Structure formats: C-alpha cells, structure tokens
C-alpha cells in the first residue's frame, strides 16, 4: 500500500474542502451572521493540516486498486468530520454526533435530518448544508481530479471507480482528469438550469440556489420545515423534472453533447428507468386519487414523490406516510431500486437490477433446458461472468449490511416499519422514512414519515445510520476494505498470539 500517496491525497482533499467552505463563509459575510468565526476556524484548521500533509510529496505516485478504495473511504470520513465543525462550533447543532449525522447525510446525498426546525437556522449554515448535497452528488475526489491529475497513470481510474456510483465506470475521454472535468461541467450546467427555472418561478435567489443544490445532488435537504409541502405547483414541477434528470446516467448527457443521439437513446437502463417511473406514477395516481380533489392534483403529487424517491432525493410534497398501503409499498420498493448508475442518485441502481433479473431468467431457463446456451447481453454488449459475480456479491453484502443495521436499530424505540424504512432510506441515501404509529412526542415513541426527523434516535442508532449512509454512497466496498485489517497487520496480530 502506498501510504505516502494516501496521506498526500487526504491533504489535497482537506485543502479542497477549505476552498469549498469559502462559499458559505461568503454567505455568512453577506448576511452578517455570527457563524463567520466558525467557518474561519474550520478553514484554517483544514488548511494547516492539509498543507502539512501535502508538503510530503510522495516520490511514487502509483495508486493501486486497494489504495484507491482506502483513499476514497478515508477521504469521505475525514471530510465529514471536518465538515461537521461549523455546525458544532457555531452552536446551532449543540451535539457533535448530531452535527456529524447532518454532514454525512449531506455529503452522502441522503438528506435525512436530525433537525425538526430548519427555518430558524442561519443562512450560511443552511447554505453549507445544501452545498454538501451538491458536493457529494458528483464526488469530492472526482472534483479534485478535475482540478489536478493525481497519479497521472491508471491510478486515477481506481479512485473514480471507488467513488462513482454504479457497477461499471468508464471514462468518457482518454484522460481521467478531462473526464472528471466534463462530468462536473454537465453537473454544473444542469444545476444552473435548475436554479434559473426556480428563479423564474418567483423563488428568492438564496432559496433557488440552495434548492438547486439539494435537487442536483439528489440530496434532499430542504430549507423549509415542510420540505416542499407549501411550495408553488410550478416549483414542484420544476424540481420533479430535474430530480428525474439528475437520476439519469451522465454518460447519456455526454453522448448528447457530442451529438451521438442514436447511442444515447439506445440505452437499456434509461428506458427501464423511465418505464419504472411511468408505471409507478400511474398506479399511485389511481390509488391516491380519492385523497385529492382532482386527478390532476393526485398525478402532480404522485409524480413528485416517485421522482423524489426513485432518484433517492427524498423531497416530499405532501405527507405520503398517510397514503394507502399499496402506494407506500411501491414507494418503499422504489427507494431500494434507486437511480441509474453513473448519476448522482443512490440506491441499488437500475442497471444492477436489470443484470440480476436477466441472470435469474437465464438460470430459470437452464432448469428446463439444461444444455441451452444463452449469452447475457446488456446495453448491446456481452456481460462478463465477472460482472454478474460482482453484482451478486454486491447484492449479498447489501442484504447483509441491511440486516445487521436493522438488528442494531431494533434496540431503539422505533416500531418495525419505522426501523425498516429508516434503514432502507439511509442505506439508499434517500432521507425520509415511514412509520406506523401516530406521532406522540410525549410518549417518546419514534415514528416515521417525511415530516419527522432522526433526532430522537439514540447515539448508537445514529452511529449505525452514519455508517449506513457512507456504506450506501460509497457502495460498500471502499469502507469494507478500510475496516478490514491488512494482511500484514493480521499476521502481526496472530504472531503475537502465538508468542
């Protein structure tokens, strides 16, 4: 393992985070808020530690596969720890674990909150909160890579693979750093478009930008207490459309950009994604139509909610916890499926689902025709057995972590539905959960729903949730590699035992 290089990249990341923190600092200065000192302190701390780490430039800049995973996992943990400081120092979130939960939730684009009251927060912290959504959406290392090439060799690809969502990551253009730049360019342009459409709808500038951040990263932090329950139908429509857009694989935008329309619209994943959205919206609209005054309004809320939960954003236009059981079940399932690979969305990813379904179909066929030969194809290409194995392993790890988290959460006071939906929601970087019991703050019972929050959970549960969010965003493997002791360490430990 190239430890010097790992430390060096962490240094770069810290300086980078310090740079990103300048934006909320400027916000604080504009609004003349007391959070200025908290931001300045965090920026200075990051710069000092970061610059010290950068000072020791490694001679050998090779990044091996394992290094790539460790860099990404460690990087995200460090970013979250430092990113939590402004909340904590300013005293607006008095407990550090809560501040950390909020930051991780932001960076992993989850959007789950421990706050019940966000509108009273200072503007600069609200900005930082939603900005973390935006940064986490495309990935911090991809951002660093866009600014400067790290290893210069194939090592950058390991980083991109470890950070970008989806089962297979390809470059768009030969150079890794150019690929990263193109991705950020598309991301930035779409975010700007979203903000402009919101501005046209009459939203103030601050609200437009922060909402665009939350939408673009498919994060789901809202600056309003009731998410988008009281927003205008126009704004909700804009947000619903953009959420769906950000859930599409960015490769498709690149293909459109270089005018290869035919290739772009051939994508199997894209059509499956659109298909799932249309089918769910139809069923839910019919199912909830009697709760709303018109079928139009039902369609409006159904499409907003489907778009929000499919892309793992987690905005809500209404309390969907009150919807009929069928709709709620469909929504929970959509949470698990998630968005397309290579998008900013979370979840299991549509492409993985397609692969597993195709694989299952093939195996079922071979039961009745044991000698039949069928080649699995996805996006017009033959799927390697390796990919199938990788996806199956991913699925198993996914279920295992889900079960483990659920057991740990059960020690808390929530009911079963709340617990299950909470874990699903956080593991898939969604945000809101659902619950069975009626909220009764006096009894201390935790219950779910888009309008409730994660504040009442115990510290143990919060730690489990924080890990779940990171697991979900980084797709398990980087964090698992980081938490598994290296072979030499294991050897040392076992030697000690023998002695």
């Amino acid at each position, binding site marked *: 393992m190239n430890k010097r290089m790992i430390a060096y990249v962490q240094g770069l990341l810290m300086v980078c985070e310090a740079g990103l923190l300048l934006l909320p600092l400027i916000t604080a200065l504009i609004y003349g808020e007391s959070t200025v000192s908290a931001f300045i302190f965090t920026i200075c701390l990051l710069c000092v530690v970061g610059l010290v780490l950068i000072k020791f430039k490694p001679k050998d800049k090779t990044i091996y596969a394992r290094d790539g995973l460790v860099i990404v996992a460690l990087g995200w943990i460090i970013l979250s720890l430092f990113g939590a400081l402004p909340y904590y120092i300013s005293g607006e979130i008095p407990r550090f674990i809560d501040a950390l939960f909020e930051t991780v939730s932001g960076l992993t684009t989850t959007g789950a909150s421990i706050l019940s009251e966000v509108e009273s927060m200072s503007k600069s912290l609200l900005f930082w909160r939603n900005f973390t959504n935006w940064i986490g959406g495309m990935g911090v290392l991809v951002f660093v890579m866009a600014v400067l090439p790290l290893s210069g060799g*194939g090592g950058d690809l390991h980083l991109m693979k470890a950070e970008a969502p989806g089962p297979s990551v390809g470059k768009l253009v*030969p150079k890794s750093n150019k690929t990263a730049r193109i991705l950020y360019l598309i991301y930035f342009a779409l975010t700007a478009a979203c903000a402009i459409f919101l501005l046209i709808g009459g939203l103030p500038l601050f609200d437009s930008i922060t909402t665009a951040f939350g939408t673009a990263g498919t994060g789901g932090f809202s600056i309003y207490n009731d998410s988008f329950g009281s927003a205008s139908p126009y704004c909700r429509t804009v947000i619903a459309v953009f959420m769906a857009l950000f859930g599409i694989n960015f490769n498709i935008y690149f293909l459109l950009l270089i005018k290869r329309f035919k290739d772009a619209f051939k994508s199997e994943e894209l059509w499956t994604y659109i298909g799932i959205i249309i089918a769910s919206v139809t069923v839910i609209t019919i199912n909830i139509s009697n709760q709303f005054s018109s079928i139009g309004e039902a369609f409006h809320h159904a499409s907003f909610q489907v778009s929000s939960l499919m892309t793992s954003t987690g905005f809500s236009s209404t309390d969907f916890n009150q919807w009929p059981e069928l709709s709620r079940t469909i929504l929970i399932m959509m949470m698990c499926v998630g968005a397309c690979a290579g998008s900013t969305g979370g979840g299991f990813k549509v492409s993985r689902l397609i692969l597993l379904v195709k694989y299952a179909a093939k195996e079922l066929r071979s039961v009745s025709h044991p000698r039949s030969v069928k080649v699995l194809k996805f996006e017009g290409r033959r799927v390697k057995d390796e990919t199938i194995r990788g996806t199956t392993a991913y699925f198993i790890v996914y279920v295992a972590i889900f079960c483990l988290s659920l057991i740990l959460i059960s020690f808390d006071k929530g009911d079963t539905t709340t617990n299950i939906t909470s874990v699903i929601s956080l593991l898939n970087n969604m945000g809101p959960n659902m619950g069975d019991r009626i909220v009764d703050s006096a009894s201390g019972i935790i219950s779910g729903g888009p309008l409730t929050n994660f504040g009442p959970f115990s510290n143990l549960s919060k730690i489990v949730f924080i890990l779940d969010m990171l697991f979900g965003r980084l797709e398990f493997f980087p964090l698992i590699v980081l938490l598994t002791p290296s072979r030499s360490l294991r050897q040392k430990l076992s030697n000690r035992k023998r002695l």
Partner: protein
Amino acid sequence: MNIIVVGIGKVGYTVAEQLAQEKHDVTIIDTNEEVINDTLQDIDVIGVIGNGAVSKTLLDAGIDECDMLIALTGSDELNILACLLAKKLGADSTIARVRNLEYSNDLKIIKDSLGLTMAVNPEKEAAAEIQRILKFPTARNVTFFGHDQVDILSFVANKSCSLTDKAIKDSFSKLKTQALACAVERNDEVFIPTGDFVVQEHDTLAVLTPTKTAPDFFKQIGYKMQDIKNIMIIGGGKIAMYLADSLSHINVNTTIIEKDLETAKNISDFFPHINVVHGDGTNRSLLLEEGLLEADAFICLTGIDEENIVLSLFAKNASPKIKTITKVNHTLFSEVIKTLDIDSVVYPKFTTADIIMKNVRAKQSGNERNDVQKLTRIINNRVEAVEFEVGADSQLIGKTLTELNIRKNILLGSITRGKDVIIPKGSDALCAGDTVVIVTSTERLLNLDDILE
C-alpha cells in the same frame, strides 16, 4: 493530439504508454478484453474492444476526430487494412507496422497508394541497429544521424581508456578528431557533462562524433578496433533475415542456427552464401561444434528473452573476446539486464516507439520546417537525442551560439552542413538548411526554437 493505437502487444503498449506520458489523448483498440482492462489499470487511456479493421470499432473509438492512427497488430495485412479504413473514415495520418520481408520491397507502393504516413518495420530497424554495432564493436550502442554522417556511440569507460580519470575538457581537447561527450551515466544517474566533469571507470559515455572519424576516435582513446569476420546468429526470425540481407553485402562469414527445419531451408533459399545450421541454438556442443570459439560476434535473436540472455552470458564465458549482441523484447527488467556482462542489448520495441514518437512530434509541431528529423533515446532511454533541420524562419539563425540563450540541460551536439560535420564551439552560428543534433535529459522538444530560454 487524438491518437488511436490498434493492437496492444508489446510495442503497442509501449507506444500507448509514451504517448500518454506526452499528454496525448490516446484510445486503444484490441480484440482481447483482458488486455484492454489491464492496460487501463496502468496508463491513462481509454479502450475499445473490437477488431480495429472494422469501421464500427473505429467509429466507436472516435476515428472521425482522430489525428493519427497507429496500427501495431501482429498481422501486417490487418494493419494495412486498418490504416486504409481509418484514412477513409477521416483519420489525418496513419502509421502501419509492416514487417514481412517479402512486403518490404513493395512498401513504397503500398505507402503511396494507401496514403500511409509511414510504415514502420521494427525488425528491419533492429537489424540496422545491430549492423551499426557490428561496425563499432567497442560501442554498446550506436545511433546515427544526418544521413549516416554523425554517430552517437555509447561505451563503457575502462581502465585502459585514455578518458578515464580526466576532466572532459582536457582529454577531449587532446584528441585529433572531433568528438563531444553528450551524456554520462554513473550509478543510475545521468548527466549532461560540463567541461570540468571527470570521467570514472565504469561510467557509460555517449560520445558524438562524425562517422568518418569514429574508428580513429576509438583508436586514440585506447580501444582496439577489432574487425568482425565471423558472426554467429542464433534464431532465424525476421530480424535475422534482415540482418543476413544487409550482411550479404559485406565480406563476413555468417552462421545462422535455426531450430525449425522449414525456416532454416527458407533462409538458405534466400541467402545461399550463408551457412545455415538446423539445430537447437541452446545446445552447448552444437555451438562449440559450429565454431563459437572462433566467432568474433555472437548475436542472440530467439523469441525468448531469457534464452537470449543466458546464451550471451555463456558465449562471453566461453570466449571472453567475443562481442555479444542480445535482443530483448520485454523492457520490464532492463535495469537488471544492464548490469550483466553481455555487451550490447537491442530492444526492438524501443526502436519502434522512437520512430513513432518522432512522427507524432513532427506532426504535433505542425511546422513544415524545423521538423524533428530523427529521435532516439540513448543510455537506457534516459537521454533524448533529437535531430532537427534548421528552417529559414528559425530564431537561431544569424547569431553565434554564445549569443543564443540556450536552456539548461540542453546540448547542441553537432551541425551538419552539406558534407561537413561541425562539432560547434561558441563562435559558430547556424544557417538555414543545416541539420543539428540536440541532446537533452529533461525536455521534450517539438521544435528547434524550443531550445531557447
């Protein structure tokens, strides 16, 4: 530039790696998915899986916006086909590897009618390099410039060498012939020496000298010029064929030992005057029987690197005076091979990569004149020697070299003007139409004017 490399074998990989290092956008094409995936882990390029001579694959790789396609698959025909297709689909220039001896005579027709920018023939180049080494057996490697008028000879300084333990400015000024030390390698470090540099024993020196006086140079510094009369070649592959072809014009006795009977017969058919032996070149008694002890040069050209190296070591052991030349295909362990006592080592894939890089840079500079004429890397590829033609619009013309502000780590080695070769002093100046050889350890030169501060 956008460059597509078709066929990722040994040469293809080296070329792609060097192009990526020089910051080009490289797309690689190969039919083998594993090769593509492995390459992507190591170098910063993008890969397309498929047959490079099929338009769909080429379009996938973005042929319409590509500046250059380099076809390096194992098959000559496939390379030519890929280039033909690439040209039609919009590639600006195309380079194909064509190495079959039988095609080499028709190469010009193929090149012209298909619009190829260049056809590289690594085997032929390697054979030419071996022949140059045979001319100067004391040297480890020989590079020639300016239509065979200037050579860069690299050799190891030994005890009897008159340069050893003296400062360069003293020892070189005593020579009667023109010569210039352009690079020295000592313990893995490479210097471009100044006049005060003191040469030590075991240093590898690269010396630039006019070809005509090169034998004289070696005599003056105390090396005996032994004439090569008897040559033994192990392995009758393509390089051996090209080598035999060029050796047939000079008066030497050549023995080729080849394992495969059909190949052996084929060589004998082409070159009747050569002594072709059918047998296993790794057989010790066969080597002795065929006159290893009488041979002046021993050249190992089998397809297996390890075999070549061990055979050379054996020959050196059996007959210490013998000059051994070893072909090595894999470059991964070149730093270890360098420490072995096996005289010269030839890496065909570096030679090929050098030729291709020269073309890429010439194209990149986009300048008709001032173009890179030749590019070679000497001293284990640590130092670049680049030959330029001085264009009429060059900023270097009309000033003496002392007046020019030439950058550090760059050495102007020689000026060839018509038939004269000048090793320049401060008072010399350049004219349009000269060719110059520039030696540099750090810079990547595209254009002659790049050498100025």
